[in-house]
């Protein structure tokens, strides 16, 4: 006799799974796909984060900051107390270079202790780290700067100045020979780009083993690298400064508390930098390099992750809903024999849990390897290193997502009464409460479709909504992608192949030009650039301060001057308001911020003039550049004559035609900000809340003579105070009267070019030298290459430019590399877009399919009846196709309509965004979806028709 087994909830659940293999296989596939998407998204987020972290570590190291010669700093206690995660020392033994004349291209030589190696995040590209005396490893960029091409195992001879403690080296260098054992990834170059030339001076790019010692008479320079703990970097400590409350991190508190007194002394370099500046400067370095594709994609990924997770959950809800709907009768029977709601949820919940347990490892494995493959395809920039927590977390989140998604339909299913479930009474009940308009004459398929839509509205709405979302996502996705494709191109200055720009600091900062301090690109450097056989031409731009010397301040100049005259008073809001109150016309125009006015008077006194001086910027461009851009100049008056510009006889005046002075206000009535805008230009919408205070009209015309005054100082260093370089006591003056050849409106040539300037002077570089009486260097140059660029040429050209400009404030930017980076970004966008569209497409197809399949299954009897009373296959199919059309009609109407409306609003509100209307892709996707659903529908109906009418009728 068969042994009776105890009936448990688990047995019921497993039994269900066994007896409904086919349905479950389909459902498992659906859930598996959804889980792969959701866990894949999580892995992708993790990949982006780890890529970001790794990229940062590889670029500048894993440390937060460093201090020079911190002999008195003991971070051990800080480590014990949980403020410091790690710290280590770099022992700088000397400074190496190859050429006496190019000492600034050299690098400190150091050995790192084990902790410092971790913090410096030494990344070996080739070979190994030095272990023995006489061995050296160099960063790639350092080798380029030194002008050597080291091979592993090769001996190199470097001139090395021995360290002398502090930040100094002994004056005489000795030749030292090392064996190159490793090539390392660049750090020094990146630190230089981030923190400036001075800050990078003690950062080593050449490493030796710890067996090397400082030569006799020298003293090693110690650099202490440190990394605070994550916990101590959260701004949790409340502080009070007078009436002002602020928060700082426990690390700041610890650091300032213990080392404040010795901080500036020990820093050695940043005497004027506050601790926050230094710390944050390194910590936030990554944010500075915002064009990097990983950084861009991380923001995008997190946004997409949320969308994909929600979409996956919708898919799972749909799979479970369909499954449960098909099993209402079973639920009803279980309820009829006394199963409680909780038990129902338990039985079906366990089924879901069993399915989830089956799906979880498979989906996690699939998505893990999928993201791994993606990271591999995307190259070095993407690093996928999930730890155990990420794996467990992803699995747990996937399981929770599926269970939560499964629970939603389950709770609804458990709520129905037994008879409702067995006899499908809810439809009858629904019908009883619906008022419908009877039709005397009707098209049978049409009326049947209409009534079905009316009675099964929830399902129709669900399908329409998901379709709407798919359409919106597709349209906006392609709109944004189109925009990215269009805009993510190399928009560097005048479309040149390479640009060398000054990074970090403004070119012109003082009242008086200080060319010895604000070093620009010299003609010598340009000549070096042109020595490279692949470079074709160099165009440049130079900038200087210049004064328009006038007998008296005109209304026009007053107005133009408002903005600059009160610009330093932004933090004196009350002061501005009080001064501005009641001031109009001349009174307002004469209103100067007191300090500024004092300085102005001082300037006039030092210049020795009674005339008024209006400060301007003069920009001199290569003649070829002006010629190339002639069509872009918006000339108000006169004409551009390159020869006259070159001769210094004429200049171009970039001017605001009708300047208007606008202020915007805080809610409390104080001025929030102020600006001068050209009233003849359309005012951007976001400036509508600005109140117009005053306006004037241009009083210059082509042919007018203007007197220009240039002031130059031969000072060798800044004497910078908090605001602006003060006026030196001695400087050269150069006055020149020129004619205005043409007056043009301000426009944007590209990066670093005129934009939003109210009044300025443009001429050729040669003309500028004559007008200013000084040969300034270039602050930006653009280089074009001969022929087409490729990977090899770009690498060689970039190396060449780096060797010229390393150690200066100027950074070479490759258009080719930027294009590639942007293409990567667009590629990521495109992959993400396609993934989302495919996901929504699949969900859409599955929901439409499930809705109609369920409807057909539920309507078997109705189909039988219709066939019995004479309806043909065509008429029955027509009725369902009409229902499908209705779903698609609503979905398309809302989707495309919503897109057109939203896109139009966005276009009007944010004119700068220049979004295009991209509906073709969505239309194609929807058409394909409709076709697939129609074919599927027809196949399903045909399948039903294969049954005899009696089989249809008897179904229930």
């Amino acid at each position, binding site marked *: 006799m068969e042994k009776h087994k105890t009936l448990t909830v688990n047995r019921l659940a497993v039994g269900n799974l066994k007896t409904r293999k086919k349905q479950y296989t389909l459902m498992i596939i659906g859930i598996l796909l959804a889980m792969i998407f959701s866990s894949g998204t999580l892995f992708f987020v993790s990949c982006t984060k780890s890529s970001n972290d790794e990229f940062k570590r590889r670029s500048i190291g894993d440390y937060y900051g460093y201090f020079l010669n911190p002999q008195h700093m003991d971070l051990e206690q800080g480590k014990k107390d949980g403020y410091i995660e790690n710290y280590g020392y770099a022992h700088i033994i000397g400074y190496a270079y190859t050429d006496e004349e190019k000492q600034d291209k050299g690098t400190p030589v150091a050995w790192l202790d084990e902790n410092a190696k971790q913090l410096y995040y030494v990344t070996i590209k080739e070979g190994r780290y030095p272990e023995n005396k006489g061995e050296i490893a160099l960063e790639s960029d350092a080798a380029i700067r030194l002008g050597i091409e080291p091979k592993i195992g090769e001996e190199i001879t470097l001139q090395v100045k021995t360290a002398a403690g502090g930040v100094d080296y002994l004056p005489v260098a000795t030749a030292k020979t090392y064996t190159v054992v490793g090539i390392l990834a660049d750090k020094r170059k990146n630190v230089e780009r981030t923190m400036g030339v001075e800050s990078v001076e003690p950062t080593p790019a050449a490493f030796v083993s710890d067996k090397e010692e400082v030569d006799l008479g020298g003293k090693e320079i110690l650099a202490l690298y440190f990394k605070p703990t994550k916990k101590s970097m959260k701004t949790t400590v409340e502080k009070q400064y007078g009436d002002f409350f602020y928060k700082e991190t426990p690390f700041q508190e610890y650091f300032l508390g213990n080392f404040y007194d010795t901080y500036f002394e020990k820093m050695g370099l940043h005497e004027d930098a506050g601790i926050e500046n230094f710390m944050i400067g390194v910590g936030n370095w990554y944010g500075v390099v915002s064009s990097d594709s990983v950084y861009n994609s991380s923001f995008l990924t997190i946004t997409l992750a949320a969308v994909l997770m929600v979409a996956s959950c919708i898919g799972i809800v749909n799979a479970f809903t369909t499954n449960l709907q098909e099993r209402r009768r079973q639920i009803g029977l279980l309820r009829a024999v006394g199963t409680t709601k909780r038990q129902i949820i338990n039985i079906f919940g366990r089924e879901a849990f069993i399915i989830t347990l089956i799906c979880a490892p498979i989906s996690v494995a699939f998505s893990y390897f999928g993201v791994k493959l993606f990271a591999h395809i995307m190259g070095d920039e993407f690093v996928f290193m999930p730890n155990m927590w990420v794996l467990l977390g992803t699995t747990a989140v996937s399981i929770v997502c599926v269970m939560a998604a499964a629970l939603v339909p389950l709770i609804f299913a458990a709520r129905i009464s037994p008879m409702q479930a067995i006899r499908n009474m809810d439809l009858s009940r629904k019908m009883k409460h619906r008022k419908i308009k*009877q039709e005397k004459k009707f098209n049978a398929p049409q*009326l049947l479709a209409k009534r079905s839509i009316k009675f099964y509205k929830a399902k129709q709405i669900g399908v329409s909504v998901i379709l709407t979302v798919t359409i919106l996502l597709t349209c906006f996705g392609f709109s944004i992608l189109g925009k990215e494709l269009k805009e993510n191109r190399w928009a560097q200055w005048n479309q040149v192949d390479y640009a060398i720009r000054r990074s970090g600091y403004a070119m012109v900062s003082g009242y008086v030009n200080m060319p010895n301090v604000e070093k620009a690109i010299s003609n010598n450097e340009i000549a070096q650039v042109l020595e490279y056989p692949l470079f074709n031409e160099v165009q440049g731009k130079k900038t200087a301060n210049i004064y328009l010397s006038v007998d008296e301040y005109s209304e026009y100049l007053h107005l133009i001057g408002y903005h600059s005259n009160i610009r330093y008073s932004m933090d004196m809001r009350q002061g501005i308001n009080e001064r501005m109150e009641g001031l109009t016309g001349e009174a307002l125009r004469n209103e100067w911020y007191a300090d500024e006015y004092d300085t102005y008077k001082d300037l006039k006194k030092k210049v020795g003039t009674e005339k008024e001086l209006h400060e301007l910027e003069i920009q001199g461009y290569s003649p070829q550049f002006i010629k190339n851009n002639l069509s872009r100049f918006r000339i108000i008056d006169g004409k551009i004559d390159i020869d006259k510009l070159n001769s210094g006889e004429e200049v171009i005046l970039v001017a605001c035609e009708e300047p208007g002075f606008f202020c915007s206000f805080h809610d409390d009535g104080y001025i929030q900000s102020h600006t001068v805008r050209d009233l003849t230009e359309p005012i951007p919408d976001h400036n509508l809340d600005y109140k117009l205070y005053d306006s004037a009209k241009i009083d210059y015309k082509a042919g007018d003579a203007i007197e220009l005054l240039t002031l130059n100082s031969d000072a060798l260093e800044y004497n910078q105070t908090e605001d602006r370089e003060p006026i030196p006591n001695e400087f050269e003056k150069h006055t020149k009267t020129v004619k205005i050849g043409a007056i043009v409106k301000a426009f944007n040539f590209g990066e670093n070019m005129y934009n939003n300037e109210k009044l300025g002077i443009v001429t050729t570089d040669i003309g500028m030298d004559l007008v200013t009486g000084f040969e300034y260097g270039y602050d930006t140059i653009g280089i074009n290459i001969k022929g087409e660029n490729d990977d090899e040429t770009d690498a060689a050209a970039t190396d060449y430019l780096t060797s010229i400009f390393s150690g200066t404030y100027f950074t070479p930017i490759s258009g080719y590399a930027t294009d590639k980076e942007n293409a990567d970004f667009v590629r990521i966008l495109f992959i993400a877009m396609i993934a989302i569209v495919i996901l929504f497409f699949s969900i859409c197809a599955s929901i439409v399919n499930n809705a109609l399949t369920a409807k057909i299954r539920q309507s078997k009897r109705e189909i039988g009846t219709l066939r019995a009373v*004479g309806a*043909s296959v065509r008429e029955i199919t027509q009725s369902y196709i009409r229902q499908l059309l209705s779903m698609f009609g609503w979905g398309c109407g809302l989707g495309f309509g919503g897109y057109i409306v939203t896109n139009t609003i966005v276009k009007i509100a944010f004119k700068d965004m220049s979004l295009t209307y991209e509906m073709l892709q969505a239309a194609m996707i929807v058409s394909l979806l409709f076709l697939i659903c129609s074919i599927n529908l027809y196949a399903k109906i045909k399948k039903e028709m294969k049954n005899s009418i009696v089989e249809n009728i008897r179904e229930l």
Partner: protein
Amino acid sequence: MNIIECKDLTKEYLSGENIVKAVDNVTVGFEQGEFCAVTGPSGSGKSTLLHVLSSLENPTSGTVTYNGEVMSNYNDNQLSILRRRRFGFVFQAYNLVQELTGYENIVLPVMLDRKKVDEKYIKRVIDMLGIEDRLEHLPSALSGGQQQRIAIARALANKPSILFADEPTGNLDGKSGREVLSLLKYVGKEFGITLILVTHDLHVAEQAERIITIEDGRIVRDSKDIHI
């Protein structure tokens, strides 16, 4: 002349792994205007005979002839047209389309045929069946008897030649059943329709002019033959 007849009709079903002969080599004919009851115990094959005769199911072998034309030669579309124009059906479970009102259910075959509704005729049928006040209701709001009347009206809407009724009183209480039966009889006579009614209830069968008894898929008794 028989309006509908079958010859050597056999219908087999697959029940699990066994083949069941629901109708076994039956030959029978029905004349125009005749009221015939097909009776027999449960599972005897009476309903299957009705389904095959009315083209709701295909025979396994044998032929069904309507007005001298062999129905197995018709394609699905032709059969649909035949059903909507010439046949009327009344089922035990009424089988009304739940989303349509009483009136819409009644005129459904006419609408499927894209013909104009003969308002006078439909009104007469409705009056006869006493359902004027239930026309605007959905089937879910009607009682069993009322639903069956609507089903009868629908069966009559296209002025059929033959009305097939499968246990039309099976779901109704005694009184409603009797009413429905007399209505069927009445409309059959009134419109000269052949009425083929399947029932296991002898009291119902007794109302018919001709009674065919089926057992194990074979006709064991036909009152017509006895009269002869």
